């Protein structure tokens, strides 16, 4: 009997890399980034790409695998960013501890909002996620003494990281890039495992036909809540890492634009058809944003146009279109 293709490892890259796990290929490409001529110099751009890739990969558990479109996950990125910043300024300078606190605080907010939205459908789900993120943004923006309000929180600093008897100076941008990449690699493995696990199977069943999943005895609302919370945790970890990239935290981190961006990246790259879609999307999106905004004042126009083109002409994103082309080529 021909079994399901979905247990077989996904092969995102053809040819040379065929025998290596695609996750490893991805990490190798990222690891080589600083050595790439021209763009390799823009390390903070690279770090930002990796952070957004982490955010988007986690987000895709919800969007691509469960089929729920949250337009509010920027909030958990932003809350994670604040959580890490506030922990640094008020509690401890330990990077690990600050990252942990940021992640847990953002995840907690996602878990609470998830309780309210998990049983909502379609447009109501999406609208509620926006409403909550706007509410959090407003609070962050106004709560001066805690969040710094309009000016945000500054004065954060990456400390030297002690790994056994090795001291890594994270102030060095290259060192921080590789630190973020290591965290990302670990998370990518975890997310890969999640989406290919029995739990991940249920998420896909819910995406395809929630009613049938219910009538198979699955408590679909609990699964949707879990997917919401898990994606919120990865968003918050991304936000926490971002705080230490820019050594500050601002309310704009929670803004709806952030939420829109992660949806855009995930769809642009092809998150609905490929595990790696969100990473491709994040890389292209962040790079384009930097390039366009450097040369055009009205780059947001291009951004809007890009969104329209993707939704209309390549709904399965770049990797989806690439797969289609390959298929055509083969016959």
């Amino acid at each position: 009997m021909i079994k399901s293709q979905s247990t077989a490892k996904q092969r995102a890259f053809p040819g040379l890399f065929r025998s290596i796990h695609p996750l490893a290929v991805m990490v190798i490409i990222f690891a080589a980034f600083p050595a790439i001529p021209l763009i390799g110099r823009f390390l903070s751009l690279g770090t930002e790409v990796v952070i957004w890739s982490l955010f988007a990969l986690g987000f895709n558990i919800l969007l691509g695998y469960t089929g729920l479109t949250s337009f509010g996950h920027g909030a958990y990125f932003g809350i994670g960013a604040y959580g890490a910043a506030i922990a640094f300024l008020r509690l401890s300078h330990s990077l690990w501890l600050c990252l942990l606190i940021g992640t847990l605080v953002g995840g907690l907010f996602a878990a609470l909002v998830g309780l309210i939205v998990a049983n909502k459908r379609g447009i109501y789900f999406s609208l509620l996620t926006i409403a909550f993120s706007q509410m959090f943004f407003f609070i962050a923006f106004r709560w001066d003494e805690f969040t710094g309000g309009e000016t945000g929180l500054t004065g954060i600093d990456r400390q030297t990281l002690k790994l056994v008897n090795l001291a890594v100076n994270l102030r060095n941008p290259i060192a921080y890039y590789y630190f973020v990449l290591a965290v990302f690699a670990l998370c990518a493995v975890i997310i890969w495992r999640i989406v290919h696990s029995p739990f991940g199977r249920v998420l896909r069943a819910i995406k395809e036909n929630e009613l049938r999943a219910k009538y198979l005895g699955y408590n679909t609302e609990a699964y949707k809540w879990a997917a919401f919370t898990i994606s919120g945790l990865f968003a918050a970890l991304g936000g926490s890492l971002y705080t230490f990239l820019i050594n500050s935290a601002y309310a704009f981190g929670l803004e709806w634009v952030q939420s829109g961006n992660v949806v855009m990246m995930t769809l642009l790259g092809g998150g609905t058809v490929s595990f790696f879609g969100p990473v491709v999307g994040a890389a292209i999106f962040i790079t384009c944003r930097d390039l366009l905004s450097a040369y055009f004042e009205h780059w947001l126009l291009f951004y809007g146009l890009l969104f329209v083109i993707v939704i209309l002409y390549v709904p399965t994103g770049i990797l989806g279109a690439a797969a289609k082309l390959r298929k055509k080529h083969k016959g």
Partner: protein
Amino acid sequence: MAIIRTENVTKGFGGLIAVNRVSVDIHPEQLTSIIGPNGAGKSTFFNIITGFFKPDEGRIFFRDEDITGLPIHQIVRKGISRSFQILNIFEESTVWDNVWVAVQGSLGYGKELLGRVEKLAGVEEETSRIIAEMGLEYEGGSQVKYLSYGEKRLLEIALALTTRPKILLLDEPMSGLPADERRRISAYIKQIAQAVTVVVVEHDMDVVMAISDRILVMYEGRILASGTPAEVRQDVRVQEAYLGAMP
């Protein structure tokens, strides 16, 4: 003891009362059919029993346990399963994946966040077994959308059975099928009924008369009559309200 008992179950949609104070006992050892003209409330009645709708009034008991208002997955876990009038399967997946995810759930897996699907004990064997039982061994890897309509119907019943129900509610399992496929499905239903209590909503009178031990006749939201096929056939009210309405 009745396996399902309803007491004055009522459900309205706006001004229309689709199910009106229905009290019935479903006996575990009988194959029960529910018949009645379009809009009589048969599907709505199934929807109430299986938790898709909460009744406006009345109560539902499963083996004397009150299950009114329980969420769907809990009702399923108690042993009530169903198929739908409009086919309800995972249309975008393969036959194998359809059955797999159903079996996985029935064996109590699904919460393994980081587990490996290949390592779930028994799921693969059970999935193969069910697919073979349906006679779809050679279709396992193909997308469900390439199956014939009858095979899809069969698959839906198989999915409903993976939850190991005590009672299976089938809503028009043969509608839209050609005669040979009807025979295949009705034989399958007879076979299932050996082990599981079956309730069928069906319009095909020949099938209903042939397979049923007991027939409930619904009309305008109420139970108009009930009895053996012979009794129901004789019933004047039924002839007037239902059979008489047919040419």
